């Protein structure tokens, strides 16, 4: 397994060298965390306070903000293979510390980047061509419901309540995104063909994360996800570059956090400053390196492809 891992690391780097994408390695310890509603930073305390920094430091859940600062400054294609850390995540597909492959392409829209992700997966795992489907069509094809209308979401909620395993809390659930996310896991993801990678595009705008909203159809965002052999592999965006809109998203996250009993998180002012100075038109994606290795090796759990998992680290 270690040999396979080393080989894949080399192949990934080779893939980007061939395309003149520059490797960067940004910090793991940061003065800011994320406001993301469903991510939680592990924090640590620095015993020798810096004049400019808090004692509390955040372990990065992804190198996204740092890489965007580099993009804003140098406007260059970049990739990174880095360890990231997320609290509350452990299981068959989760280890609190894992390796993320993240890259950004200047001047690419999301469709161009989707083609490149598909190329990378095919080249490294011998997968056949990727099936691309919009979020809305995935729901219509696999469930016969439209996730972009209020009546559709209500009907999806009813379908979930009919499941004995879910009825308890789904009958009281009012958050539309939660309903859609659970339905996606329960009904959609499970029905994807396993033999080809599947790319889901145009997520609802309420799940835009850091993607641009579609100009023609404001109900959806230019966000995509890759799934392969039952595993969520990658998440990407045509990147939001408007600092005002970025600030609104931070605020929305924090409102949601407060409403749901979570602590609001400080907004990363350095990311906002980088966007103010001008992020080039670009698309970016983060791909779970360990999960890709799992798929290639046919491993059952992430523990099988890590040198040491959290239980033995």
């Amino acid at each position: 397994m270690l040999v396979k891992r080393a080989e894949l690391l080399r192949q990934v780097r080779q893939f980007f060298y061939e395309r003149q994408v520059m490797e960067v390695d940004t910090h793991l310890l940061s003065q800011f965390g994320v406001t993301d509603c469903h991510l939680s930073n592990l924090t640590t305390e620095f015993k020798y306070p810096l004049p400019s920094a808090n004692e509390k430091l955040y372990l990065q859940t992804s190198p996204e903000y740092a890489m965007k600062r580099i993009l804003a400054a140098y406007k260059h294609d970049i990739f990174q293979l880095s360890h990231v850390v997320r609290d509350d995540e452990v299981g068959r597909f989760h280890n609190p510390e894992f390796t993320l492959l993240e890259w950004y392409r200047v001047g690419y829209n999301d469709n161009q980047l989707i083609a490149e992700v598909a190329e990378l997966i095919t080249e490294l795992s011998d997968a056949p061509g990727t099936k691309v489907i919009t979020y809305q069509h995935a729901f219509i094809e696999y469930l016969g419901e439209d996730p972009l209308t209020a009546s559709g979401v209500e009907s999806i909620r009813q379908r979930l309540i009919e499941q004995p395993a879910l009825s308890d809390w789904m009958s009281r659930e009012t958050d539309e995104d939660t309903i859609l996310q659970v339905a996606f896991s329960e009904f959609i993801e499970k029905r994807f063909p396993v033999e080809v990678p599947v790319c889901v595009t145009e997520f609802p705008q309420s799940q835009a994360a850091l993607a641009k909203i579609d100009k023609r159809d404001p109900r959806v965002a230019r966000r995509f996800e890759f799934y392969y052999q039952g595993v969520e592999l990658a998440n990407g965006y045509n990147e939001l570059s408007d600092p005002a809109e970025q600030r609104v998203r931070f605020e929305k996250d924090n409102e949601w956090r407060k409403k749901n009993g979570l602590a609001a998180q400080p907004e990363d002012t350095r990311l906002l400053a980088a966007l103010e100075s001008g992020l080039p038109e670009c698309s970016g994606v983060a791909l779970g390196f360990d999960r890709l290795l799992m798929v290639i090796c046919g491993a059952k759990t992430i523990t099988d492809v890590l040198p040491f998992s959290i239980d033995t680290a």
Partner: protein
Amino acid sequence: MANYSTSEFKGGLKIMQDGEPCSIVENEMVKPGKGQAFNRVKIRKLISGKVVEKTFKSGESVEGADVIELELSYLYNDGEFWHFMNNETFEQVPADEKAVGDAEKWLVEQDVCTLTLWEGKPINVQPPNFVELEITETDPGLKGDTAGTGGKPATLSTGAVVRVPLFVQIGEVIKVDTRSGEYVSRVQK
């Protein structure tokens, strides 16, 4: 009873569901990269024995079940209750028919059984994996037969019926696996 958050879920944890104490068999965290996490859990209902699947929203809490497991030795049956004793405290615990269930046919005096107690009352009795019981009834076997030819039914002193090899006779003591109800070997007295 304390409440447990989904982050404390693990195999063996006892929780209340649908008014019944349950034990978690399997817990899998499902977490989209950008989205609500939840726990897909297999639970065994401890009274009915049924295994069901439940999905919990991560971060929610569920009521714990006041369930303990005790190793107690079987004493006797008074016609209504089966009595067990804690060999350290000598405290006696009566279990009713519902709790004993199918375990009845494997209960041998002084054998140590695992009793599951909910709010102090036995709800399940698990016999030892192997018990030794005397054969009270079986057809006489044919001479020269050896194990592996299909065997014959034999009734044991507790009323249990198991298949035994043809050479095993009335009055002999045999070892039985209580999980499968299968004959293991003869026991030399």
